[in-house]
């Protein structure tokens, strides 16, 4: 079981109350609304078996083994299948402010960012590895999801089919830029504010029946002058999409360029401007984590209407 603490610790419903009770039994009081993140092992009826908040794999295993021993020590009548009865939740009682189930009317696009490096001899791009001097985190690809509403796609593809090409609507391109062209390879990144989109273009160009090319560029920076900006991403956008008004069948998009800077929770960025890319692909329903909401949707209206908030 895996969850986002930002939602769980705030929920004013049965789920939130259960989690907070569990965390408090582990001494995680969440003073002042602070994080209760960590690893928890417990029984279905809420008895804590073990907990900690440490990244060490050895620590995970030690705590889990101790928790299993505590589980085995419980009376059989508490452990046997069906010994505990938990009623299903009434969906209408859930705290919608902090509950983000996968809506039926969105396409899920998998989003992965990766720090790159240039081969000194050929100039070709390569994935970073732990052998890169000075980089201790952020070597791997990040994971996030972009949600595109069905009607946004159907309106966009209809326009491109009719006119040969169409610009992404302001709400959608702002959503992609502000919440997904971010460096989340080392932790929770700062999202871009509306005014930090210094320039942008993303067009869908028809190349064949139900086939389209994506072209565009984006400059995101914390200062109007990108030279002076503490953080930025200057990217070219390229891709291919397939589908029609009834459905999206392919969504391959790459944002590639130079990224610089870091946020409060993404310390450890490489110095200066460095090659960086974000890749988008159509998600697969049923894949593990497919239903996990975008990191940027904590304020739901602000995510969908990213050009207005």
């Amino acid at each position, binding site marked *: 079981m895996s969850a986002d603490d930002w939602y769980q610790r705030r929920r004013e419903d049965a789920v939130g109350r259960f989690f907070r009770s569990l965390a408090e039994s582990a001494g995680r009081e969440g003073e002042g609304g602070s994080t209760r993140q960590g690893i928890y092992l417990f029984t279905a009826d809420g008895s804590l078996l073990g907990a900690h908040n440490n990244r060490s794999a050895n620590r995970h295993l030690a705590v889990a083994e101790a928790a299993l021993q505590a589980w085995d020590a419980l009376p059989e009548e508490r452990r046997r299948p069906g010994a505990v009865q938990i009623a299903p939740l009434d969906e209408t009682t859930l705290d919608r402010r902090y509950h983000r189930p996968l809506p039926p009317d969105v396409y899920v696009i998998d989003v992965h960012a*990766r720090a790159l490096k240039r081969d000194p001899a050929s100039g070709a791009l*390569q994935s970073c590895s732990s052998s890169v001097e000075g980089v201790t985190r952020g070597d791997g690809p990040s994971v996030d999801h972009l949600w595109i509403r069905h009607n946004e796609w159907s309106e966009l593809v209809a326009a491109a089919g009719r006119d040969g090409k169409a610009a992404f609507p302001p709400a959608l391109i702002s959503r992609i830029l502000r919440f997904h062209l971010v460096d989340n390879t080392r932790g929770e990144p700062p999202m871009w504010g509306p005014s930090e989109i210094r320039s942008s273009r993303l067009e869908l160009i028809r190349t064949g029946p139900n086939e389209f090319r994506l072209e565009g560029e984006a400059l995101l920076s914390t200062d109007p002058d990108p030279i002076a900006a503490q953080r930025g991403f200057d990217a070219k956008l390229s891709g291919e999409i397939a589908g029609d008004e009834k459905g999206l069948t392919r969504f391959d998009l790459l944002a590639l360029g130079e990224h610089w800077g870091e946020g409060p929770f993404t310390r450890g960025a490489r110095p200066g401007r460095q090659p960086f890319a974000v890749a988008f692909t159509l998600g697969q329903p049923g894949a593990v984590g497919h239903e996990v909401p975008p990191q940027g949707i904590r304020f739901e209206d602000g995510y969908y209407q990213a050009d207005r908030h």
Partner: protein
Amino acid sequence: MKTFSPLTLHGFALVWALAASLPAAAPEGDWKSVHAMVVPAPAETGWRSIPWRTDLWEARREAARAGKPLFLWEMDGHPLGCT
């Protein structure tokens, strides 16, 4: 000793034991090759082999039916969907 399967602990250890395979180099002008390099390689997605649940209440109900304890990985930023 019981295992956590399907809320498995054994698979959980994989998250920290991934051996990332590095994709080949790609020319900057070849966006498809760069795209393929950025998308996670199979060796980087071992965590997807674990059937993670994301609904705490339903996970409790499933564990109760199965007679198993639960393992919860809770982070600021969803572990399966942020970073």
